[in-house]
């Protein structure tokens, strides 16, 4: 028997079958150590009804329809099991065809079922009937709501007040659709949540490589270094966690920096629990170790760091040689010893050295990641990613197998059917002049900026966002939202009740993940893929031959989806096309008709996704049909080190190479269907565009930075007044021990619970049952002197107020630090709202002093879902964020979440869940942090508001960057300026 021939025969047959897009090995079996229904049977998949078993054997027939999860930003693939008899979704499981999640999900994926069957969800458009926040609503038609909102927007645009229209988004869940809507309207009205989230992380990466996000190749790493638990227990949890574990199975080492014993830390080979804010000191000690011992990749540093620019600018008197730079480099970080890092962090120096040795052993297979956590917690936290990436840059572990990539190389954003031009205005409410280097909108300052008289909002949309609850200083948000002088019309686009929607004028129901269209791509490994979120019941009905023209036809009640909503709203703003808006929402197939989502996505899939049309054709499908059938498509994998790619000759015309090697060309940029956001370095003085960088005589693609190299030295920071931050360095946090009073501790408030979703899990009964409260983690050494035991009430005092919470005495937290998860503490005043995880509270106000008192927790209740009678928990946590003032970092703009607090046993009058805040005091803290800034009007080197090369959501036209001419008085603070 020739087993070799047999082996080859099977391999060949498998390759053929897979090339045809067929499953070769049986799906639900032990063969691949996993269970997935073979895709050939997705139209008619048979399973036994678990509810009938064991009494009866009942077969259930399903249509399996892919979509993507919307419960975090990972966009993992889901397969909806649509019952062929009832055409209802019975469950969600993983989509094995999704390259990022590979058929696996965390708890949040299957819990999507709870969200779509939530008995408390919003099913119809609602309009406020009483005062804002009074809780009185009337059902209105979509037409009424759309006409009112469209008229307001049209008026604002035609009266030159376009920037009074603002769209404030939490979880985008898509790649630029709504930004383009705003661009089509010509308004600079995009506002994201990012400065309460990841802009500190983004800033650190952006200044290094011109891309604001990392893409660690965990699966192939030898050493993984994670600063925070957040990433692999929260954001990108599932796609990253599975690859982290894969790497560990292959023998890779995992290092986790986390003050708290997080889920991720429990898997670590090295768990480092530093004092919050000291992370950069440790990272620099590791860097110093690599430098001192010559363990770095000299050739990589020589070729790819902008050391020549650094020497020329900072040491012009020294020889411009690499050896000079190395000598200076040794000196720069010599003081970052393990002893110094130990003193700052409270972690034993020997343990830190041990970690450094492990890092050094990684070579080019060092994957590192930080996102929120330390970068989002501390003043100067943006230097944490900068110092973390320094380790990659030293080891040459940049875009290598097992290294860390710029995310843009592992992401694909297909060019859509229309790309409207940049708005010509600048919105000072989102991009205030004090923060020229902020990576994202200063969204959390909005109430203060409005109170300062900097503008007014005519129409304010919140979408998958709940600033009253999510942002710091929520009472200031309530004051803003209830003041009709500041906000003319507030519209909450949400599938479910939230604390912000309670204060809105309109609450418009938008679909959950399986009830809407979106397109996305995220960096989760060294490859590029797109995922297609689709309304699964619509797709199921279309598979059965029905024609669906509006997703409301298949969604529950009158729940809509945003793609269709924005198209319709845009038509109503510009019904005759005279504003030049309507043309971006018109069909190309049927001129004069509205653009339908089918045409919108079909255009993208047919024209902007390489390989998809061919792959679809091989299966006899249209590209849209393929995406509707499989939900995802991998465009490429193993992208590799793009910076080393030689620039093609065709792109090199009339080339000019700058002193430091930046190459500019007159050749036009070749069309690229991938419009993933990148830094956009300036052209040279004669208008040539930057095309690459000369390295050892060859023009290579390089990085999208001004120098074309990795910017160890940021001239941008120097030119905008921050020369002390030009290099990766350690900035002492606002919660550094030296900044604390003797009786203060640090409160970490940012950590996630792996089974919860920021503001949208109050309607997921399975998740709520697993995690529904947020006690204060406190070490026995801190608890004992106060005679605190687990369950005792404590009062936590911040700069602007206090909250009362239960203690959890645990050794899983560093002494001197307390922690409380931000996930919990949802509340409602009365009436509408989620009943599974929202406490009922009363709000009290006397001038600037606010109080929130918990009246009752949750309890069982009768509904269409019998499980709501089985609710056994009552405690849903405490809303601590209300008691935090804003802490905008003067450079990144990131809200610095960590709080200096006093923790005391609760007094006789304290009750669980009590909150007290002074918004006047909150405004004073805002002013104190504002004073740390270096405003563009005083520090801009070129008369602009912001370096043009920095990435910016919804980038305005170049003219809008110019600072107002100070020789003439600035116009009155209207139009959002």
């Amino acid at each position, binding site marked *: *028997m020739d*087993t070799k021939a047999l*082996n080859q025969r099977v391999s060949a*047959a498998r390759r053929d079958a897979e090339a045809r897009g067929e*499953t070769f090995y049986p799906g639900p*079996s*032990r*063969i691949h150590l996993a269970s997935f229904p073979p895709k050939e049977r997705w139209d008619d998949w048979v399973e036994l009804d678990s509810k009938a078993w064991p009494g009866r054997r009942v077969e259930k027939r399903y249509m399996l329809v892919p979509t993507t999860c919307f419960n975090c930003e990972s966009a993992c693939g889901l397969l909806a099991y649509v019952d062929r008899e009832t055409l209802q979704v019975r469950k969600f499981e993983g989509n094995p065809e999704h390259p990022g999640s590979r058929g696996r999900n965390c708890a949040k994926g299957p819990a999507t079922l709870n969200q779509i069957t939530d008995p408390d969800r919003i099913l119809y458009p609602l309009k406020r009937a009483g005062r804002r926040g009074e809780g009185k609503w009337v059902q209105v038609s979509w037409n009424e709501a759309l006409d009112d909102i469209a008229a307001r927007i049209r008026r604002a645009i035609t009266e030159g007040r376009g920037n009074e229209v603002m769209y404030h988004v939490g979880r985008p869940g898509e790649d630029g659709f709504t930004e383009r809507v705003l661009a089509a309207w010509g308004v600079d009205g995009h506002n994201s949540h990012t400065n309460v989230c990841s802009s500190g992380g983004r800033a650190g990466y952006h200044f290094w490589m011109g891309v604001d996000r990392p893409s660690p190749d965990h699966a192939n790493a030898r050493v993984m270094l994670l600063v925070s638990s957040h990433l692999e227990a929260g954001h990108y949890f599932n796609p990253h966690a599975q690859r982290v574990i894969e790497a560990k199975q*292959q023998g890779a080492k995992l290092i986790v920096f986390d003050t708290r014993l997080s889920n991720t830390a429990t898997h670590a080979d090295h768990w480092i629990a530093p004092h919050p804010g000291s992370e950069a000191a440790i990272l620099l000690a590791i860097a110093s170790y690599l430098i001192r011992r010559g363990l770095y990749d000299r050739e990589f540093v020589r070729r790819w760091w902008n050391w020549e620019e650094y020497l020329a600018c900072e040491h012009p008197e020294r020889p411009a040689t690499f050896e000079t730079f190395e000598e200076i480099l040794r000196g720069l970080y010599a003081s970052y010893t393990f002893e110094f890092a130990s003193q700052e962090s409270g972690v034993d120096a020997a343990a830190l050295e041990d970690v450094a040795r492990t890092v050094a052993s990684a070579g080019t297979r060092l994957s590192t990641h930080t996102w929120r956590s330390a970068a989002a917690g501390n003043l100067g936290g943006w230097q944490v990613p900068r110092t973390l990436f320094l380790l990659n840059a030293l080891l040459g572990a940049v875009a290598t197998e097992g290294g860390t990539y710029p995310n843009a190389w592992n992401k694909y954003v297909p060019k859509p059917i229309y790309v409207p031009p940049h708005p010509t205005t600048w919105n000072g409410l989102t991009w205030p002049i004090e923060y020229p280097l902020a990576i994202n909108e200063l969204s959390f300052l909005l109430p203060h900026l409005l109170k300062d008289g900097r503008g007014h909002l005519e129409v304010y949309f919140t979408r998958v966002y709940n600033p009253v609850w999510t942002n710091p200083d929520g009472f200031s948000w309530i004051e803003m939202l209830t003041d009709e002088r500041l906000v003319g019309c507030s519209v909450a686009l949400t599938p479910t009740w939230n604390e912000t929607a309670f204060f809105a004028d309109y609450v418009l129901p938008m679909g959950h993940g399986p009830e809407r269209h979106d397109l996305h791509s995220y960096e989760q490994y060294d490859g590029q893929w797109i995922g297609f979120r689709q309304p699964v019941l619509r797709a199921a009905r279309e598979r059965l031959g029905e024609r669906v023209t509006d997703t409301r036809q298949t969604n529950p009640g009158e729940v809509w989806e945003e793609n269709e909503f924005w198209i319709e709203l845009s038509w109503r703003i510009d019904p005759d096309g005279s504003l030049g808006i309507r043309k971006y929402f018109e069909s190309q197939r049927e001129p004069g008709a509205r653009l339908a989502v089918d045409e919108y996505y079909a255009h993208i899939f047919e024209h902007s996704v390489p390989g998809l049309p061919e792959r679809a054709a091989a299966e006899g499908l249209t590209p849209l049909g393929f995406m509707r059938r499989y939900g995802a498509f991998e465009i490429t994998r193993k992208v590799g080190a793009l910076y080393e790619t030689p620039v093609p000759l065709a792109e090199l015309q009339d080339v000019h190479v700058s002193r430091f090697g930046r190459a500019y060309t007159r050749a036009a940029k070749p069309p690229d269907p991938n419009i993933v956001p990148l830094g956009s370095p300036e052209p040279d003085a004669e208008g040539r565009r930057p095309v690459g960088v000369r390295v050892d005589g060859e023009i290579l693609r390089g990085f999208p930075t001004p120098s074309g190299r990795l910017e160890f030295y940021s001239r941008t920071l120097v030119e905008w007044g921050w020369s002390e931050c030009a290099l990766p360095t350690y900035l002492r946090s606002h919660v550094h021990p030296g900044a604390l009073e003797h009786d203060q501790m640090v409160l970490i408030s940012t950590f996630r619970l792996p089974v919860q979703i920021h503001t949208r899990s109050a309607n997921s009964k399975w998740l709520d049952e697993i995690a529904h409260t947020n006690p204060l983690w406190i070490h026995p050494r801190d608890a004992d002197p106060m005679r605190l035991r687990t369950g005792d009430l404590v009062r936590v005092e911040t700069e602007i107020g206090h909250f009362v919470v239960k203690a959890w005495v645990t050794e899983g937290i560093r002494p001197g630090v307390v922690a409380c998860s931000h996930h919990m503490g949802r509340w409602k005043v009365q009436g509408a709202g989620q009943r599974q995880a929202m406490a009922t509270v009363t709000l009290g106000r006397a001038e600037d002093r606010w109080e929130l008192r918990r009246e009752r927790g949750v309890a069982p209740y009768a509904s269409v879902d019998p499980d709501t009678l089985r609710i056994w928990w009552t405690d849903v946590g405490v809303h601590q964020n209300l008691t935090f003032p804003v802490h905008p970092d003067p450079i990144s703009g990131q809200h610095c979440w960590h709080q200096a607090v006093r923790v005391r046993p609760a007094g006789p009058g304290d009750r669980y869940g009590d909150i007290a805040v002074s918004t006047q005091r909150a405004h004073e803290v805002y002013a104190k942090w504002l004073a740390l800034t270096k405003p563009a009007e005083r520090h801009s080197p070129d008369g602009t508001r912001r370096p043009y090369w920095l990435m910016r959501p919804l980038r305005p036209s170049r003219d809008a960057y110019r600072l107002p001419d100070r020789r003439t008085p600035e116009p009155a603070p209207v139009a959002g300026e």
Partner: protein
Amino acid sequence: MQLRAGPRSAAMMELWRALGALGEAPGPEQIRLAQILGLPGRPEPHEYTEIFVLHLYPYASVYLGGDGMLGGEARDRIAGFWRALGRVPPVEPDHLTTLLALYATLGEHENAEREPARRVLLAESRKALLWEHLACWLPMYLDKLREIASPCYRAWGEMLGEALWEALAQPGRPDALPLHLREAPSLPDPRQVGAGAFLQGLLAPVRSGALLVRADLARAARDTELGLRIGERRFMLDALLSQDAPRTLAWLEAEVRAWIPRHLAHRDAVGVIAEFWAARAETAADLLARLAAEGPD
């Protein structure tokens, strides 16, 4: 054990996976695989049930456990092996199909691994699986399969045997017996422990050295001209013994003794493992002979 991760050591993984897939209940994929492999006929559900559900249960614990039943320490040991690899043990960690799939997976990882040290580690894991959890029972299982299976599954078993012999021929045969066998209890003497424990032991291959399936007991009834009572194997055996113990014991002695050369036929491939099984069969046969000679009590 001396191991080398050579280019051929982890070959044939596609074949291993395909053969594993064929160990599942037949569906369209199994039918296609049977065609690709050129198996005679096609795998039929009733044949699958007859072989794998009624006679040759495809679980290592049945053949390696002291009770001759599913689960127990043998399954725990195999689950521990999964955990040692850093994998979560599946629901049935000792199912033949699962073990073949794991073998293929380890081999594929080994083939894909570029770093020599990790490659050796993966090769060691794969060989540990081969010797500790497959080679110690599969030869006997396949031997029996050949005897009772339909043509399609018989050919499948022969193919699996061929792949197994090739893998076992690679360098790195261990000197020691697998832990399953080292720890295996022997066949108890009914005169000391009673008939119940003895019958249970007789039906536990690792104690008796013999594999007695339902078809064998039906044959015993025919050969001894005793009445066959349908039921579990122990019930069937008990019924035979109650009718005519000496004749049944004599038949069992011959049946068990016949396994000695069958085991030793694998000595070249599995060495001490074959000797272990042969010794177990010989001990059991001798005991049966003594019992038969002692008469009906």
